[in-house]
């Protein structure tokens, strides 16, 4: 009985730790900047404040926020698409075909998947710079499209769920190797396509360091980097040093910017919770 009470208290305390910040950020845009400090942290302001913050945020520097969101969408969509097109056949090839160097390729995939991507950003910049592609969408999309974790997920999927007999039967029926992949394996691979898409999307959308290094034009930034620009334009964080000129951002707008910036990933998290959890567990196989 005593344990139960302790458990409950600890779990509720951590629920507060994890969830109170989210509630606060959701409520903040309904208040004015002064009400943030004067009214209770969990007080709800009103909707007109919210619309005011919305207008101010999307009106900031002639609508740069909207552009950042579109950039994030383009970069993530581009990166995810190429990553999937590369990962599905690669996972299939690693799992169900034999070729020299297969194990080496698999080992390198594992190492690059675990190694944090940040470590390669500076050398990537120099590489991309040498072909004059920095500050273009490709400088972000192409590195995004290298997604070894997706390849590993596909490899696990194909080696554990596609019965080899089925593939052999298709070959006997005269299917060539491409046909076996196209007509047998690919239609069965739908769940893993979704899995790879989710993980790649979350990783790409939330990536900060790579676009931060690659892109220099303000209007080309994704929203994650755009948030930094908003901080530097927020009066409360930079009193007396607005940095970016006349137009300043108030804190309720900044809170709204957080909500808008993470909304796509949050939606994926809510609706794909199970899929994501499955993928996290598949990241390493059980004995």
């Amino acid at each position, binding site marked *: 009985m005593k344990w139960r009470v302790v458990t409950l208290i600890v779990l509720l305390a951590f629920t507060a730790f994890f969830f109170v*910040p989210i509630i606060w950020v959701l409520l903040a845009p309904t208040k004015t900047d002064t009400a943030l400090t004067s009214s209770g942290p969990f007080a709800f302001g009103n909707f007109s404040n919210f619309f005011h913050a919305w207008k101010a945020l999307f009106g900031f520097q002639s609508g740069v926020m909207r552009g950042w969101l579109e950039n994030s969408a383009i970069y993530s969509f581009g990166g995810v698409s190429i990553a999937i097109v590369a990962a599905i*056949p*690669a996972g299939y090839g690693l799992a169900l075909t034999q070729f020299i160097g297969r194990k080496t*390729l698999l080992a390198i995939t594992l190492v690059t998947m675990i190694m*944090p991507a940040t470590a390669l950003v500076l050398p990537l910049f120099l590489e991309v710079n040498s072909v004059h592609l920095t500050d273009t969408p490709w400088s972000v999309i192409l590195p995004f499209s290298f997604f070894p974790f997706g390849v590993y997920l596909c490899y696990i999927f194909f080696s554990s769920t596609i019965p080899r007999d089925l593939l052999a039967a298709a070959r006997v029926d005269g299917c060539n190797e491409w046909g076996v992949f196209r007509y047998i394996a690919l239609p069965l691979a739908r769940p893993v396509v979704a899995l790879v898409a989710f993980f790649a999307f979350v990783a790409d959308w939330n990536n900060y360091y790579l676009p931060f290094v690659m892109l220099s034009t303000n209007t080309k930034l994704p929203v994650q980097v755009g948030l930094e620009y908003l901080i530097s334009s927020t009066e409360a964080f930079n*009193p007396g040093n607005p940095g970016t000129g006349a137009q300043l951002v108030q804190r309720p707008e900044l809170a709204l910017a957080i909500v808008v910036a993470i909304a796509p990933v949050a939606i994926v998290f809510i609706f794909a*919770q199970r899929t994501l959890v499955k993928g996290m567990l598949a990241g*390493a196989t059980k004995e």
Partner: protein
Amino acid sequence: MTVPPVATVSGERSRARRGGRSERASAIGTSRKTGYLFVALYVVLLALFGIAPTVYAIYLSVTKVGGGFVWGSNFTRAFQDFRFLPAFEHVAEYLAIWLIAEAVLIVILALMLHPLSRRTSASFRFLFYMPGALAGSASVLVWLFMLDPTLSPWHFLLSLFGYSQIDLVLLPSHLPWIFAIMAFWTGAGGWIVVMYGALNNIPDELLEAARLDGANALQSALRIKIPLIKKWIVYMLILSFAGGTQLFVEPQLVGQASAGLVSNTWSPNQLAYYIAFINDNFNEAAAISVTLLILGLLGATLLVWRTRLFEIS
């Protein structure tokens, strides 16, 4: 790191060989060439965005501007930089706090969730997991608000310690703690889910037997559950270590928001960025990148070959 035998793309589609072979042998025989085709695009991406930058970074780190080998001198110069040691000390302190918090709190929370009903524990897991959606600059911004005593919902806690202004919270000695809190906030939920899943894989009979032998909840946690999920804990710690050494966005944004309270070379990655773009010395920056790369690589290699968590067959 060895350079892989990069698959050569011949462009010709392998012709299915028929007759004279058993079914299985022909399947393997025909798939050899197509195997290369299937992995071709991925291998190109791996070569361009995984291998090439690694090799290039190593090359830069041992050469000087305009070419010519200088071997270790970029490294000695970087190591002797007055900002180098502090940057690594900062990250070491941050890692110590964060990894201990993970090893202790995540395991305790997962153990606490495990005996609850599926539905109750699912709600808790969801609530813990949700901040993961805010990884990156969003979580830093959220915590800048949370740590500002003038508007934080944690106002009562902050004032308990006597912090009335954000300047008093963002003291240099607090930063490793603050970044550890941010990392824990976004990352812990996902790991709790993983640990919970690992605990669920423990056979019921085993726990039942322990109970019959008179083990209480604490004993069965310490003697049975934790040893059985140990490899997952190691997995989590190694991944966190590799990722944590690369810290960038947290000190960068907090520095931005605190107008000079945080050095812009607080972490090694920031220092590398600074040396590359402000000092315009990519060779010395590459030396730091390679040092960080080796740390990440060590973690990754250790994980793949020592824990046998991954399947290579």
